[in-house]
């Protein structure tokens, strides 16, 4: 037998867990303005995430999917995008969304049980969160198809988790993107755990990046905790897509430091020692070391940044909590551009029964879903 | 000769164009041998021989368009041939196809609004609750022109009951718009319940359905020996009468015009209770001894008064006996309750002065009143029945 095709999967890391920079790092590694901007967003996202979990624990937010540990992967990808590109997230890519201008109060609005949280004031073509696993991959392909048909120099960037790669839609999307050379970038955030199922039980493949081979597209693995590497690789993929050279599949290796969601208790199925070890590789730590080595960061600035982030998060929380409960009309008014006659009758019934009666059942005086019902 | 018609070569293809023939007239072909190539809307396909045989006729030249189902080839002396139309459509699709032109008018939607629909009802259309319609049908009440008292003028059950009662009838003049006009006050009254309500309903049903005709006569009991049991004698007489005239022991449905002569004489005995009338049934009176009948009568009368009669004791009655004479009254016009066709009433016994030969004598006599449904029982049948009953009753034992 002869070999008819051969493949290899590259791994990219510039900044290791200790904060040491590898040789051959791109210019971004010394672009202190960009590095500081990313560090600032990563710090802000962590502050936001911590606060969101606390809001849920105090009955002021619904079920929430923490992004703890994913800050580099999320911020790095968004930083590689152009404003006119389209982001298609899963449900925890808050770092990407905040970078792209989605307000933190808007994010809280959605996770507080209110569809108005999907009506972004910026990045208005970006998709909202996608709960049915992997279905968003096809939206990313479709968005890219529209861009290609219209000859636009833009691309779609779609996230998926490690578990999502087991879904048919994952393969359907990368296969379609490959077959039609779509301007699409697909980023697998491999955080080792799909709720309680570890990656070894999800697939027999050594990497998830190699699944790109089946679709005939480039696949690359990157240290998802190294924001320099993730941004660099994604920038290359975005540029490639925008040049019309087709899609890329990126596997970002990171770790889910938190529970799957606030309704989950990861201690039921994973060893604490593993989590402890993962904390040693978390993304903020190494970037801070690097910035300090570049002499653009110190404890004083760290303290000031944290205080500033806390203020921003508090302002967002205030805005979220002060928003009135949506009108029952909201259930009906956005279903169709041309609503059918019968809906108006049901809207009347909802008006009669929903106001006042049900509001009394809400906790914390905010008229919000106070409990984590899952 | 067998004709092979062009099968549907796709899923619902209307036609195919002949590209080239591989066979000629006179050729012997074997099953599955390619015969011709045709081009359909989907593809160029080879059509194989459906069976072995000799080609007799080829329909069409290359370039001709053949409609699905139209003749393609005639074969002669074929072996194993099957009717081609029976074969078509089992393996491939067979879309119904025609050149029939569809001519239609289609009116889109309407401006109707169900919420103010009451103003839009076409004149003359009745709006009635389903239960009211059902009751009206049962009581034979025509709802036309009735003003409903339900919401939005809907006719409800009460309207039907009111309309069917004699009081309402007497107060409803032709053209009167309301059945409730000049209605007497029932303040302090009561709603009929239980037996009385059942009586009310069955009597209304009888009135509306039966054509009653009553015959009167007297049974001369002068020759009766001591200790005769009036009720059991009556039951025996009825059984004898029914045997002579089976038309009196029958069920009749006027709606379907069907009559059923009942094989057994099961007589309902009207029992007066404080709550109303109840009619338990004595089974098969023609084949029972006097003692058995008496035992049954006593049991059922007791049960009727104790209200312990079972539904089985009330079911499937074929003839009714009303022995009102135990209280008072000589003659009556008893009411036949459908589906039965006859009822016999026995009045108060009395000693009557009657002519005997050339003199007069005082004889004990029992007045009898026989009502029959004249829709299905003739006067002759009824009279002969009554004559038989009289003869049997007048026997000494």
């Amino acid at each position, binding site marked *: 037998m002869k070999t008819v095709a051969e493949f290899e999967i590259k791994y990219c890391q510039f900044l290791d867990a200790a904060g040491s920079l590898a040789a051959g790092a791109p210019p971004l590694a010394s672009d202190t303005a960009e590095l500081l901007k990313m560090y600032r967003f990563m710090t802000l996202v962590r502050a936001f995430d911590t606060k969101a979990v606390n809001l849920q624990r105090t009955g002021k937010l619904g079920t929430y999917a923490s992004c703890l540990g994913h800050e580099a992967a999320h911020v790095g990808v968004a930083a590689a995008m152009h404003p006119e590109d*389209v982001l298609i997230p899963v449900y925890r890519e808050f770092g990407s969304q905040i970078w792209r201008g989605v307000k933190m109060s808007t994010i809280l609005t959605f996770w507080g049980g209110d*569809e*108005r949280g999907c*009506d*972004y004031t910026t990045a*208005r073509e970006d998709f*909202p969160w996608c709960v049915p696993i992997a*279905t968003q991959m*096809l*939206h990313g*392909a*479709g*968005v890219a*198809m*529209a*861009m*290609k*048909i219209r000859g636009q120099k833009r691309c779609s960037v779609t996230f998926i988790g490690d578990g999502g790669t087991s879904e*048919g*839609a994952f393969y*359907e*999307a990368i*296969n*379609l993107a490959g077959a039609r050379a779509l301007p699409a970038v697909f980023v697998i955030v491999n955080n080792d755990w799909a709720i309680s199922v570890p990656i070894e039980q999800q697939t027999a493949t050594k990497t998830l990046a190699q699944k790109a081979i089946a679709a005939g597209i480039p696949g690359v693995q990157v240290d998802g905790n190294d924001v320099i590497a993730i941004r660099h690789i994604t920038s290359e993929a975005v540029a490639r897509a925008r040049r019309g050279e087709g899609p890329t599949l990126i596997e970002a290796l990171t770790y889910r430091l938190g529970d799957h969601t606030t309704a989950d208790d990861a201690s039921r199925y994973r060893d604490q020692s593993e989590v402890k070890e993962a904390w040693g590789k978390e993304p903020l730590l190494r970037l801070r070391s690097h910035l300090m080595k570049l002499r653009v960061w110190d404890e004083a600035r760290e303290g000031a940044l944290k205080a500033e982030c806390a203020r921003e998060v508090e302002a967002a929380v205030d805005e979220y909590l002060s928003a009135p409960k949506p009108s029952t009309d909201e259930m009906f008014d*956005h279903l*169709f551009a*041309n609503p059918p*006659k*019968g809906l108006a009758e049901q809207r009347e019934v909802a008006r009669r029964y929903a106001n006042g009666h049900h509001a009394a059942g809400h906790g914390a005086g905010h008229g919000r879903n106070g409990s984590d019902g899952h | 000769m067998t004709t092979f018609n062009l099968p549907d070569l796709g*899923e*619902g293809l*209307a036609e195919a164009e002949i590209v080239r023939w591989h066979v000629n007239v006179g050729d012997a072909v074997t099953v599955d041998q390619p015969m011709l190539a045709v081009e359909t*809307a*989907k593809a160029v396909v080879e059509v194989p021989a459906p069976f072995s045989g000799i080609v007799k006729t080829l329909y069409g030249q290359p370039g001709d368009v053949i409609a699905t189902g139209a003749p393609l080839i005639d074969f002669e002396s074929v072996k194993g041939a099957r009717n081609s139309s029976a074969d078509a459509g089992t393996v491939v699709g067979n*879309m*119904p*196809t025609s*050149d*029939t*032109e*569809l001519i*239609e008018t*289609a*009116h*889109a*939607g*309407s401006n*109707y*609004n*169900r919420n103010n*629909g009451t103003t*839009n*009802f*076409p004149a003359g*259309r009745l709006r*009635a609750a*389903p239960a009211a*319609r059902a009751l009206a049908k049962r009581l034979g009440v025509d709802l036309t022109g009735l003003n409903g008292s*339900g919401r*939005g003028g809907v006719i409800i059950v009460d309207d039907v009951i009111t309309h069917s009662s004699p009081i309402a009838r007497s107060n409803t003049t032709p053209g009167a718009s309301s059945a409730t006009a000049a209605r007497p006050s029932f303040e302090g009254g009561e709603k009929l319940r239980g037996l009385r309500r059942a009586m009310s309903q069955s009597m209304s049903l009888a009135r509306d359905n039966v054509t009653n005709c009553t015959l009167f006569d007297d049974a001369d009991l002068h020759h009766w020996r001591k200790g005769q049991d009036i009720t059991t004698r009556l039951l025996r007489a009825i059984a004898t009468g029914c045997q002579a005239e089976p038309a009196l022991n029958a069920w009749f449905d006027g709606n379907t015009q069907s009559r059923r002569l009942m094989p057994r004489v099961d007589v309902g005995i009207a029992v007066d209770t404080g709550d109303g009338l109840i009619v338990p049934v004595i089974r098969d009176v023609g084949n029972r001894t006097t003692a058995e009948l008496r035992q049954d009568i006593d049991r059922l009368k007791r049960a009727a008064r104790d209200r312990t009669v079972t539904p089985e004791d009330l079911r499937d009655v074929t003839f009714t006996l009303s022995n009102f004479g135990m209280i008072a009254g000589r003659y009556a016009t008893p009411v036949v309750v459908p589906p039965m066709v006859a009822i016999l009433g026995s009045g108060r016994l009395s000693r009557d002065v009657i002519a005997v030969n050339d003199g007069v004598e005082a004889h004990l006599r029992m007045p009898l009143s026989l009502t029959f449904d004249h829709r299905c029982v003739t006067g002759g049948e009824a009279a002969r029945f009554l004559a038989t009953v009289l003869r049997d009753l007048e026997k000494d034992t």
Partner: protein
Amino acid sequence: MAKVTMIEAINRAHAWEMTHDPTVVVLGEDIGINGGVFRATAGLQEQFGKDRVQDTPLAEGMIAGMAIGMATQGLKPVAEIQFMGFIYPALDQIANHMARMRNRTRGRLTCPVVMRMPHGGGIHAPEHHSESLEAMLAHHAGLRVVCPSSPARAYGLLLASIRDPDPVIFLEPARLYRLVKQEVADDGQALPLDVCYRLREGSDVTVVTWGAMVTETLRAADTLESEGVSCEVLDLATLSPIDHDTILESVVKTGRLVIVHEAPRNCGIGAEIAATVAEHGLYDLNAPIRRVAGYDTIMPLARLEYDYIPNAARIMDAVRETLAA
């Protein structure tokens, strides 16, 4: 005006709208050079190019999912699923995203997608090719479900569906694709959605039906007329949302209702119509409502399919029973 079959009418509606609206794109399996398995898209790729008339890889969920992505970018995808029995892989996308996108983003992103597919049996097709699954789709808020019964309505309702700013499931009765021809002006005139079409005026009984059953019902109505029975026949046309007002108006007039559908009776759209008439028109009924529907079994293969699909005889008996009640 030309006399065209339903499949030709569908083809013309595509061509008209693609000519007049550059955002319309057509997707599906074998719809390009092959013109679709029923030829609904014949010639379109030649006329409008491979970008706007795209053969997709073979995955129904993918077709629906990519249509969603394209629609949110302002295109109007018209996607073909080859047979309704193959809709299941696409349901995740249709139900979870297509139907919900406008609502969940409060109108920021929308899905003006048309998902076309052949519907129902009667063409002796193989297994999984003859299903009538409209009730399953009608149950999802945010979707319109449309089913034409003539070439003219196929043309007008497809144009309306493409122009509608929200997703439409467009069910094409395969049995009617080439059954008859009708004069249809290729003038770009859409027909209204969300309304019934009264095809026959009558006074004794209202018969509501759709798709291929319209043909059977009209046949039954013709025979019944010779017996002195006057049927009012309504083509439901938009199966969701249902035009209950037109049905009720007709029931108020006739006092009797028979519903005919090819799909199984259990939880069918007929049940929704019957329930609504019971809620709003019970007092106008002279007789119980009757349904003539497919049996609650699996759609049989070709040899029994005509024993499954309601026919004129069943419809006539139901009408007669209603009149006798």
